[in-house]
């Protein structure tokens, strides 16, 4: 097995965190957990309250709504933010495809996490805007 890059190095290569300095990245790695999921394991559960914000560090996941696959996610993508920002349960399942590594930012910490790191928030907003544009173009 290849040895994995250190957690801080992995965070440094994640676009969401591209503007953070090394000490800031270390603080993120210290404060939040990395979690790894088995093939087929659910990470978010449609309709179940209290989920977290996840950033994919390695591996892939599928987005499933009512048992139907609607999207795929890969390294650098994040999920869980919609449910946290709208204060409702997740609208889809997220299921690991192969072993999936994520950084986990627990729901109660997300607001503070973003307010303390406006550049991360801006990058997140950009990603959301791109998703929205993709959806609008697809619908038209």
């Amino acid at each position: 097995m290849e040895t994995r890059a250190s957690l801080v190095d992995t965070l440094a290569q994640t676009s969401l965190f591209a503007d953070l300095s090394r000490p800031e990245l270390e603080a993120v790695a210290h404060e939040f957990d990395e979690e790894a999921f088995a093939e087929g394991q659910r990470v978010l559960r449609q309709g179940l309250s209290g989920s977290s914000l996840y950033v994919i560090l390695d591996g892939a996941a599928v987005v499933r709504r009512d048992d139907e696959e609607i999207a795929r996610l890969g390294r650098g993508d994040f999920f869980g933010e919609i449910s946290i920002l709208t204060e409702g349960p997740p609208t889809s399942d997220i299921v690991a495809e192969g072993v999936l590594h994520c950084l986990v930012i627990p729901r109660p910490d997300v607001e503070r996490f973003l307010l303390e790191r406006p550049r991360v928030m801006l990058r997140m907003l950009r990603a959301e805007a791109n998703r929205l544009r993709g959806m609008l173009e697809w619908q038209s």
Partner: protein
Amino acid sequence: MAVVELPFPPGAYGVVVVGSGPAGLQAAYELRRRGVDHAVLSADEAPGGMFRTLPIFERLISWTKPEAPYAHGSREYELYDHNSLVADEERCQACMASLMDRTYDVPSRAEMEAGLARFAELAGLRVRYGCRWEATRNDGEGFVLETSDGEYRCRAVVFAVGVTTPWTAPIPGLEHAAHYVDVRRADEYDGRSVFIVGKRNSAFEVANSLLPWARRIVLASPRAIRTDVLGHSPLRTRYLQPLDEHVRGGFGTSIVDASVERIERNADGFRVHTRGTSWDGPLVFDCDDVIAATGFRAPLQDLTRLGVTTVADERIPAQTAFWESVSVPGIYFAGNATLGSPGLRKQGLSSNSGSVNGFRYNARVLVRHLAEKHFDVAPPRPLVEPDQLVSFLLRELATAPELWIQKGYLCRIVNLAADGLRDDGILPLQIFVDEPGPDACAIAVEMAADGTIYPAVYLRARNRVAEHPLSPHPLHDYETEEHRRALSELVDPLLGST
């Protein structure tokens, strides 16, 4: 000298457990109780694991209260005694209660070690001591463990090896520092200026113990201390004096949010270069000693080479809800390492799987699962009379130690079987919400983001799970008329089908 015959000679077994700390002992007890063929190996010479030498300054952070409203040995008493292993027979229960000298309501290291040894003795647990697991192979049907005594073959293996191997952050020069585990006596720091890398339990334990001796103490790590979170952590029980001194002006004690960039050794001691995380700029410290309280990792030997996935820079093996490696089926974990199976984390709630109070139940549930999955030993699933269901569930919600200590992590399940309602016992909540099964209900105790504790009910119907929080109660009394009514309505569909 008498010749002592060692148990469990090398050979083939159903399950091999490695470790004789609290988790290894709990797993060994459960395997014997369920009649699963097994062997228990340990590199130590006696039971107790980590508690034979740690914590360095001799005081635990988990409570055992000799006096409680419930009798020693009752299930309810386990809520008042977070350090005893759990057992069916009365003589093995609540081992810690009578060992406490009552200086504090948390045991000393020596009391804890004695309590674990007493459990092992009273339960008659056998362990092959002085036997070191060195390497691991997968032989297609199971695993081969190479040990200092020879080879052990098994279908499944439970690693209860703890999380006590020193881990140091990749900071240039930190290799010159002593690690937490190398610290010996506080008086050796008489009049010295000490820089501690880290701000978690072990950093505070050392800082607190050096307060009467050291001239100056600095604790530094990148992440800021959050006093709102501290109130809910085990740290609150002890070791907060250094924080108190810092907050009052830091005369002699400073707590700094900084990443440590490098450490230089010089004729006078050390020079530590840091850079702020919650503030901007560099800060340089000259000191006599540097102590790395940077944490620990699990001693996984060659398991990563075998394909076992880890998290947190190879410190902890990543596990499924039944504490099986996410990448190598058949490899299971017990004890402190079960932090690698964090569960649903609802509202960010974490488990107590890193301490005895929580992982003693994980080990029990793990063995029940192993026995059924690999050895066809089904647990008893007693019938529940329909008119008793609501009372039974409310009583569990109010007093079950598994649900209270492993909040949002373990749950109690009652299934609708062909012949009526069957109590499926304690299982991971994650299993209930993710795995298919018969129509059923599960109950758990959960905590909202603002710290409010409330009972939760999960209903599974045709493999769809819905959750229903019930009202909190200021004294956590869930056996009220209101709760009875709410729960009765929820479980009515289950009762209707019996």
